[in-house]
């Protein structure tokens, strides 16, 4: 950058641009920036100012001026309410299932795909696993609900064929987390594996040659060449995903859960949705949502710090 500047100066000798001249030259850049900037201010930052709602007994029609200020009472109500411990535990448990299953399996999938010598099998696997990502949450949940139906669901047909009794999965709390986890895995595994495939392709082939010369088996090569090679990207993805895990896919949970499964399925985000948009208690819902957002942000910061310490990899 420096050398370019001096070159430019050589071409245009001794003309330091004043602020006004700079503005005249690049003012139209601001014009290009403007629509997007306005959008961010109106549709993402203005709602952030709206987080004040958490401190009010908010009335949607009277606005913030017409609503009663209640201080921290919404937060106190959420933190001491009966739903607090249940939603926090459920959020953490679902995040944990995600962390243990949905996060690592795409890495293994990527390794399998890149290790296959038969190119068309590897292509086919990639294409097939990637496809569910294109299907909407509503359709995927609709498929899950219908497949698990006790009377007409394909899963229960298989169970009956194997001699078992049909199970009404959607009403049994103990099945909710596995169902949600497998559904997420099915939908996202292929998509998540892409970034690891790209990373594995970027590893220097000479490293594998050297390992082979040293007599390393395939498994040893994966352990000592592939995994260390993609560790930075794994950590980045982990840090990126931790915030998302806390926010869990409430868009699909609200389609799958029912009052009978709330004991395992109701997470903070679904509680916010129900309290706010269904029961119209905006202040309480905003307080709960803010709590969740702050926890998610803190977790990302901590995870990033740890990742920096362990491997000098940081998202910032």
């Amino acid at each position, binding site marked *: 950058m420096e050398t370019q500047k001096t070159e430019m100066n050589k071409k245009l000798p001794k003309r330091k641009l004043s602020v006004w001249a700079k503005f005249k030259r*690049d003012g139209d*850049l*601001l014009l*290009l*920036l403007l*629509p*997007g*900037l306005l959008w*961010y201010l*109106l*549709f*993402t*930052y*203005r*709602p*952030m100012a709206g*987080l004040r709602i958490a401190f009010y007994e*908010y009335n949607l029609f009277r606005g913030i001026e017409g609503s009663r200020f209640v201080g921290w009472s919404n937060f106190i109500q959420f933190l001491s309410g009966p739903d607090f411990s249940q939603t926090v535990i459920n959020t953490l448990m679902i995040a944990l299932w995600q962390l243990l299953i949905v996060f690592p399996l795409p890495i293994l999938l990527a390794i*399998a795909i890149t290790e*296959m*010598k*038969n*190119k068309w099998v590897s292509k*086919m696997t990639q*294409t*097939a696993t*990637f496809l*569910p990502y*294109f*299907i*909407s*949450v*509503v*359709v995927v949940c*609709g*498929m899950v*609900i219908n*497949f698990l139906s006790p*009377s*007409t669901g*394909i899963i229960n047909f298989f169970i*009956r*064929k194997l001699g078992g009794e049909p199970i009404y999965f959607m009403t049994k709390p103990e099945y909710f987390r596995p169902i949600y986890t497998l559904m997420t895995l*099915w939908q996202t595994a292929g998509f998540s594996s892409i*970034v690891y495939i790209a990373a594995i392709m970027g590893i220097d082939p000479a490293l594998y040659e050297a390992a082979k010369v040293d007599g390393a088996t395939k498994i040893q090569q994966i352990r000592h060449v592939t995994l260390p090679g993609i560790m930075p*990207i794994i950590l980045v993805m982990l840090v*990126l995903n931790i915030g998302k895990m806390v926010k869990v896919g409430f*868009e699909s949970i609200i*389609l799958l859960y*029912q009052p009978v499964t709330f004991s395992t399925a109701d997470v903070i*985000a679904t509680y*916010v*949705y129900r309290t*706010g*948009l269904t029961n119209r208690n*905006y202040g309480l*819902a*905003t307080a709960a949502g*803010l709590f969740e*957002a702050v926890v998610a942000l803190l977790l990302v910061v901590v995870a990033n710090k740890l990742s920096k310490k362990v491997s000098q990899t940081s998202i910032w």
Partner: protein
Amino acid sequence: MNEKKQLSETAFMTRNEKIFNGIMVFIGIVVTILSLYPIYYVVIASLSKPLFVENGDVMFWLKSPTLASYAAAAKKPGIWTAYANTIFYTAAGVLVNMFFTTTMAYALSKKQLIFKKFFTLLTVFTLWFNAGIIPTYVNFVDFKLIDTRTAILVGFAINTYNLIILKSFFEQLPESIEEAAIIDGARNLSIFWRIYLPLSKPALATVGMFYAVARWNGYFWAMSLLNSDSKIPLQVFLKKMIVDKISNETDAAILTTNSLSSPTTVIYATIVISIIPMLIVYPFVQKYFKSGATIGAVKG
């Protein structure tokens, strides 16, 4: 040529390597079946005689093919309005997305932009912290955008990940192309329009596809912001169909005994109708999606 190389590669594999490769191929085939079977089942169930689907006789193959479920789905009141709405939200929505995203990404990619760091931080910050659903909903109420198409089109004009993908693409274009234009007296606006956009077709296609799929599949905000049946997109229509089904399972059972097609197969047929456009474009957009997924993950 390629095949020859592969042949020789397998020929020189040790026995252990052959076993290992065999295991990998086996995993690939199993994973492929697991990924495709649910979609395949929905298709064959929607095309089979409803009675056989309800009995569990349809598992792997079509049984007495019929279009009855599709006929019933097509007659559902509101389905075609919802379909047309989805096409509108996708087409118009992507145009809105591309206008807001490309202009801003270009401005942010230029190092001569004043306060560039500040503006970039302003956008990236929203990835880590956002107001959440209630303040966002209230914001739409404040702007009097509830039950308007504008809310759907403009309210979600920029996705920050897509903005970052485009910005980093613009940044990697060589500066020399632009210097020539500056000497010709062209300003940023025309450099953007006449040089950057034509040169960025692959990146624009990638981001456009991301937006199109999100628009086609999006349901949550459409459900929360739109009340009139005349404005809802297909996903909200489907959601109503499926949720109604759970709460009325007993009613549905009574209804089906006499009718030609059952709610289950009608739902499957509606699902197929809704995902057909995605399945058709999938082979074409797959490669764009792949490059986008890689950039997005690394730069985001």
